[in-house]
């Protein structure tokens, strides 16, 4: 790519230039082989009943019908909805509260709080899962704490009981996601002119009304991003479940991403597993598009 030849030197970057394809070629090659091709293969595999070893049989749309009708395959998607509340709704609410009090009160050490509260986001999920397993142990800190408060009746084998396992996993998602939301919203709030708050305060608006009328409208874009990121995280939950509960007790914490792995690589029903993965992908695309459409429309 020497500078001295023909079209290469004519015109600055910005002018039409076929050499761009040279810059793109290596990336496009990797993308084609390790992103596009597997995706095409996934669609192909979803029309087959295949055990991963012998010859597969074409089953048309059977796998898709099964995902939407078979209660065993549908259940994980129900669980994913529950996780949405913990991974998305709660972190966004907590993030809003934390960000707005930090911004409103001009908190000293805001950088410190931001860093600490964000920290769970960077720790490997396997580590997070192991830490929280200890907390949820029957004789772990959570139950100890409840007993110390005299609330012995509330103690549980949190991950071992059908009724509490999914929520216990979900709460870890809240713990991980809150910092991300807080940081996003802090960045958004820092762009709101102080005078707007002062004006609202002069008009007699309290902290909550100020957040509602001044903070929230300014955060539209950040909230859209937070919804997208947290919903995708909820739908993709795998490591947490794999390490904390392996889908149990019973089927209580089976989630779509875990089922993808279980069916296609453990149970030898590759077509099933891949179909779940594709439905999951479609859901993620749908959420991304809808959230961003709504956010953009609101901006006009």
């Amino acid at each position, binding site marked *: 790519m020497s500078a001295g030849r023909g079209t290469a030197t004519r015109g600055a970057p910005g002018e039409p230039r076929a050499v*761009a394809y040279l810059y793109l070629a290596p*990336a496009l090659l990797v993308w084609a082989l390790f992103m596009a091709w597997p995706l095409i293969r996934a669609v192909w595999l979803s029309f087959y009943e295949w055990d991963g070893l012998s010859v597969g049989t074409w089953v048309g749309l059977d796998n898709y019908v099964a995902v939407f009708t078979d209660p065993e395959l549908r259940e994980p998607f129900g669980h994913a909805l529950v996780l949405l509340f913990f991974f998305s709704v709660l972190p966004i609410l907590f993030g809003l509260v934390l960000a707005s*009090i930090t911004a409103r*009160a001009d908190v000293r050490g805001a950088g410190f709080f931001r*860093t600490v509260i964000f*920290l769970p986001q960077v720790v490997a999920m396997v580590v997070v899962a192991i830490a929280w397993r*200890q907390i949820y142990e029957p004789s772990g800190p959570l139950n100890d704490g409840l007993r110390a408060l005299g609330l012995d009746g509330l103690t549980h084998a949190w991950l071992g009981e059908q009724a509490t396992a999914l929520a216990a996993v979900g709460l870890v998602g809240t713990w991980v996601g809150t910092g991300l939301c807080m940081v*996003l919203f802090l960045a958004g709030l820092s762009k709101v002119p102080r005078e707007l708050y002062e004006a609202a305060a002069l008009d007699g608006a309290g902290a909550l009304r100020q957040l509602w009328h001044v903070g929230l409208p300014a955060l539209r874009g950040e909230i859209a991003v937070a919804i997208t990121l947290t919903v995708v995280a909820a739908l993709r939950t795998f490591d947490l479940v794999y390490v904390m509960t392996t889908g149990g007790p019973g089927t209580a914490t089976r989630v779509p991403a875990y089922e993808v792995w279980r069916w296609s690589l453990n149970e030898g029903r590759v077509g099933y597993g*891949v179909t779940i993965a594709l439905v999951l992908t479609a859901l*993620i695309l749908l959420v991304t598009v809808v959230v961003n459409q709504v956010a953009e429309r609101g901006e006009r």
Partner: protein
Amino acid sequence: MRVSAAERAVSYAVLLFAAVIALYPLVIILVTALRPDQVGAAGGLHPENFAEAWRRGNFGTYLRNSLIVSGCVVAVSTVLSCLTGYAFGCMRFRGSTVLFYLLLIGLMVPSEAIVVPLYYDLRSLGLTDTYLSLILPQVAQSLAFGTFWMRAYFRGSSREVVEAARLDGAGHFRILTSILLPMGRPAVLTMALLFFMWTWNEFLLPLVMITDESLRTAPLGLSNFQGQYTSGTALLAAAAVLVALPVVVVFLLTQRHFIRGMVEGAVK
């Protein structure tokens, strides 16, 4: 903004409470890691748990594997993203919009969707249980964000400087390497940090691709260690600390860049 002393106090209390909750599980695991592993052993701190976990759990190998894979992914993804970002950000050519959106699909396709076909294809090529089976798919997934991120940087770069360099006879490659990239060090660094964090923490890909124990990455090794080693929690906690530490240290050293990177990458 001026708020009442009472509100200020409540604000600090809430933030402090949130910080304690954020730190608590991490502190628990650190404290557990320093406790005696066997019941009835002497009290006090037991830093030798780390050495013991390192040895018994084979974490020297796992951490080295993670370092090799992360290093390669960061290097390759960073170089490729700079090239694509430059092309999309500074050049006009046929099909640029279509190609850009094609690459961007990678931001939305979860690895769950491609990991299974990849596994069966790579297995038939004899490529499972290799570093390549971890590196190449991870590069493919990093490229979408990298392209997006670097395109935004190159678009915002100074036209005048580029123009001046061109008048001095610099070609497009020269402009990229001698002018735009040195100026864009913060942007490139932030991106590389994110690539490192994502690759180091990745779990599904190694779980599917790697059966050979000598090729396990740190999170995978940790998950296996948990399955095998159920008697004492101190060694498990020590191993967890070993796995988390590299990313946490990098994060704490660079948190300003890191957080800004996350936020800007997300909001753009």
